[in-house]
């Protein structure tokens, strides 16, 4: 079983599906000849040709709209936004056209929307965003956010095979930093299912994306101090795995919800609200939220570090939660 980085997981999953199913194609800015800004589709144009790895004009709304149109006639487009931050330029097509199409027309709408997202890469306010929560508020869309190479591959394949629009948030910071064994062949991670990335008994962290790794690091540190932390990687944000959340809360009674995205209005609020309504009797402590500060992602490293959620902050928050 080959070792793959997170970005290779995405790339490998995409290539696997394109070989298997001729109706799958990719469109976006610089995805073809250049192989994508992050080289996720490097070499694809040579294997699949310029129609299936389609270099578009710089026009997010049209790219998304063309994806919707191609899905209507039976193709399975994978739309790439060069950075997830630019999804705001195609926002209406995503939420109102793709999001409602099946409901209002009965057409299945198999379109995947790849969104390279996340901070920690000195991208500043417009190349660091985590815009997932907007889309977890749109009935008709699905939203996933893998944290590992295996999940990256399994979720891109599941997303492509889904008959609904799926937003796929891939975290840029993880691209080349996370490696693991991933099978060359078929790997499917069911949309809507969380994954217990670490078992524990004292505290739970409900998280996703880059924050999973902060939680794992903090858990490792707390282990040294005799505190056992369970890390639940949600993976799918809409729909999300309510059973898995209930299971972990039942087990530990103390939960932190964590993500890199801004605190207020983040997906964590949804998870925390769900927990407080459905797991009220199981809780031994308040549901704690931890996220980045409510502030545009700053450019200067010192400011970005100050603003972002970090392992240290997760560690400190968990310690406090353990002591409640």
């Amino acid at each position, binding site marked *: 079983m080959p070792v793959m980085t997170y970005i290779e997981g995405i790339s490998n999953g995409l290539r696997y599906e394109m070989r298997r199913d001729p109706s799958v*194609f990719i469109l976006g800015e610089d995805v073809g000849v250049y192989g994508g800004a992050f080289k996720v589709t490097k070499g694809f144009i040579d294997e699949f040709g310029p*129609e*299936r790895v389609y270099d*578009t*004009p710089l*026009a997010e*709304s*049209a*790219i*998304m*709209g*063309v*994806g*919707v*149109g*191609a*899905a*209507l*006639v*039976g*193709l399975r*487009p994978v739309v790439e936004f060069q950075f997830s931050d630019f999804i705001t330029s195609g926002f*209406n*097509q995503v939420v*109102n*056209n793709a999001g*409602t199409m*099946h*409901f*209002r*027309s*009965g*057409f*299945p*709408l198999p379109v995947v929307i790849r969104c390279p997202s996340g901070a920690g890469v000195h991208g500043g306010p417009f190349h660091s965003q985590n815009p997932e929560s907007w889309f977890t508020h749109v*009935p*008709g869309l*699905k939203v996933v956010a893998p944290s590992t190479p295996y999940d990256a591959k399994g979720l891109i394949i599941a997303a492509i095979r889904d*008959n*609904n629009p799926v937003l796929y948030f891939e975290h840029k910071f993880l691209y080349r930093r996370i490696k693991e064994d991933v099978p060359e062949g078929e790997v499917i991670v069911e949309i809507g299912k969380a994954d217990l990335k670490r078992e524990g008994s004292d505290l739970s962290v409900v998280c996703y994306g880059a924050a999973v790794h902060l939680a794992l690091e903090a858990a490792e540190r707390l282990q040294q101090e005799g505190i056992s932390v369970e890390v639940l990687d949600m993976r799918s944000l809409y729909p999300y795995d309510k059973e898995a959340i209930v299971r972990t809360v039942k087990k530990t009674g103390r939960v932190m919800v964590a993500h890199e995205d801004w605190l207020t209005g983040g997906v964590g609020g949804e998870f925390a609200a769900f927990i407080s309504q459905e797991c009220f009797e199981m809780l031994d402590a308040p549901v704690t939220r931890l996220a980045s500060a409510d502030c545009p992602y700053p450019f200067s490293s010192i400011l970005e570090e100050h603003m972002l959620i970090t392992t240290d902050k997760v560690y400190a928050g968990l310690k406090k939660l353990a002591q409640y």
Partner: protein
Amino acid sequence: MAKAKTGATANGVNGAVAHHENLPAGVFQQNHLKKLDALLPELDIPNRKYGDLTKDDYIELYRLLYMTREVEARLTRLYRQGKIVGGVYLSKGTEAIAVASGYSLNRDTDWLFPMHRDLGAHMSFGQRPMKLYAQYMGRAAGPTRGRDGNTHMSDKSRRIVGMISHLGSMIPVAVGAAIGCRMQGKKVVSLTFIGDGGASIGDFHEGLNFAAVAHAPFVLIIENNQYAYSTPIVAQYGAAKIIDRAIGYGIPGEVVDGNNIYAVYETVKKAVDRARNGGGPTMIEAVTMRMRGHSEHDDHFYVPKDLLEKWAERDPILRAQRFLEKSGHLKEKARLKLEEDTIAFIEAEIEEASASPMPDTGDLVSSVYA
């Protein structure tokens, strides 16, 4: 006939025009009325052959045109009777454009993306009036099963894709459908519409530029009916004609008299044929005048009364009737019979729609996902 209250009209129009003219020098580049007047076509449509139309086509196009007018007139009636859910957006005076465009397509293979004022396109592309009424009444028999309203009407089995309200949004989608069909090796064309107002929005530009670069088998009909809600074209765009944008996309652009249904057919059909044969996209500007308010609750006070009178004489139905009479394709007696049959047909369709059940709430939420 759309009659605005006289007093209000006089005031409103003078008010509106005065406002536009009182703006700081140059805020509007052209004089309001001059620009609108320049668009007025001649009184009669030329008595000549139009494209590949046969005698039967001339008659069928007329029937569809007449049917659209009468279907809409009954929508207004039903609206006043409180039998319609939501608003009603009519195409009175501009029906020829939608009808002829839908008719130019191959209804067994092509894809149609109608806008809010294109009821006639649904029908000329094969849709039953019953379905349209059921949609307006929020019934289960409507193509969206009560989920969407007005003419936002997808019909999957017919390759009709209903619009979302956001004007311009369907342009890139129609382009995507066209490109997608080509990738599948099909010789298929997609067609959509946009208004003089909708043409100002970003998706118009992104979609057309994309279509041009991709050489997509796609046709865009710009329905220039001179108003976007209350906004006159003088406040909507700076160019002399909207179609002047075609050169900026490097694709063919044509202007056509939108109140001549046969000319519209001829122009659109040429573009559709070109697209089908690999010749790329075309933009067509069909010039007309919206003869009623934006919707049935809008009294139209802001449109100059004399302008409406001039356009009323150029009504597409009257002009088609005169043409059919002169050309001999359909003489008055036969025409009256056809009209009578059409009305009877429509009334039966309304009855069927009215008697049909409301949608079930049971699968509402589960139908959000495929």
